[in-house]
């Protein structure tokens, strides 16, 4: 949940930096580099701004179409060094991928028009 009260579902997937690499050398074995940054990231202003920015942009783009529901999928990279969060990035390699799914339940089409506008014989 964001500080504003908005609920955002996050599916956490291990990134390259925390994936166990069989070829890797000595590795400190605290849990902070894989748990703390994820938990702490949600408190970062950068994280909140990134999420809200993406969601607001998508909603604005679809404002005229007024979908009944909308889902947005995008990637966020959290960079941690020495146990400290340094930045939150919404793009990798200069490109960002955002998947938008909008749906309409067509209730407007099934409902009768408002009174006074009812079609009839003329």
């Amino acid at each position, binding site marked *: 949940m964001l500080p504003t009260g908005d609920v955002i579902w996050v599916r956490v997937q291990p990134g390259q*930096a925390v994936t*166990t*690499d*069989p070829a*890797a*050398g*000595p*590795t*400190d*074995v*605290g*849990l*902070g*580099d*894989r*748990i*703390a*940054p994820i*938990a*702490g990231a949600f408190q970062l202003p950068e994280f909140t701004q990134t999420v809200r920015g993406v969601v607001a942009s998508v909603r604005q783009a679809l404002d005229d179409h007024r979908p009944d529901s909308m889902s947005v999928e995008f990637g966020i990279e959290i*960079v*941690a*060094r*020495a*146990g*400290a969060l340094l930045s939150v990035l919404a793009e990798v390699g200069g490109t960002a991928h955002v998947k938008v799914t909008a749906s309409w339940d067509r209730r407007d089409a099934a409902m009768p028009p408002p009174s006074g506008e009812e079609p009839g014989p003329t």
Partner: protein
Amino acid sequence: MKREDIARHLLVTCSARLDTDAGPQGTAFFVAPGFVVTAAHVVGGADGLPVRLSEGQHRWRGHVADVRPPSAGEMAATAPYPAPDIALIGIDEGPEHACALLGKHFPGEGVRVMARGYTPTFDHRSVTAETETFRLTGLLETPDPACKLLKLGLGEVTRGMSGAPVLDLKTGEVIGMLRTSRKLGSNLGGWVVPASLIRLLWPEEVSLANDFFHRKDSRWRQAASQLGARPSSKKSAPAGGGLSIGSIEADVVSVITGGNVDSVNIEYGPVNRRRPGSGTR
């Protein structure tokens, strides 16, 4: 009772899971009344950081009182924390507790040891305790000439074991603190900050207090005597410590099964409460 069972029980009495506000971070163990140690990278090298410790039904609150070295600064996320990578934590609040019997010398190579740490091994979500045995395979010099690390092999060091006590299965002494895996997902073991160095870093808060604790409370030494050889120290047990082997076993087991850590430390005073910023450097 098997040697490994006794060792496991001794490790339970001194070790604890370490959490910060960001969640579980690793393991720590009591080295003196009111003091635990963990790896510096477990607390992000942050002096004064508040932490929570837990073991069974027991809970403690404390803060980082000293870090060696204080911070890793800008370094690659995958690089090991600079040596020695150890932090002293002062306990502010919580019940009395047992203390690990800290060794004073480098153990011989080939010695079998056991570590106990809090890891997400089971399902990668919950953090639970696990033990692992190793062989001591050698020494590793670091850029700091005063700091040599012990090398373990023939066992797996998993994430969360940073700060775990490593116990000599023959003497019952804790020979040091785990800090690094030599290679994750392998049985190549890891690196250990020697107990002798821990004593050297904090000669009063840890070394003298550890000796004093075990002069007052002989149960760890007596339990350790069942492992096959006596610890290196020749200090005799205090009066009142003349329990039979059988009752010592029962006492150690009761500490574990009953979760009554106080029973190990019945002669020691209240926890030393230190304030953040009153570091010991």
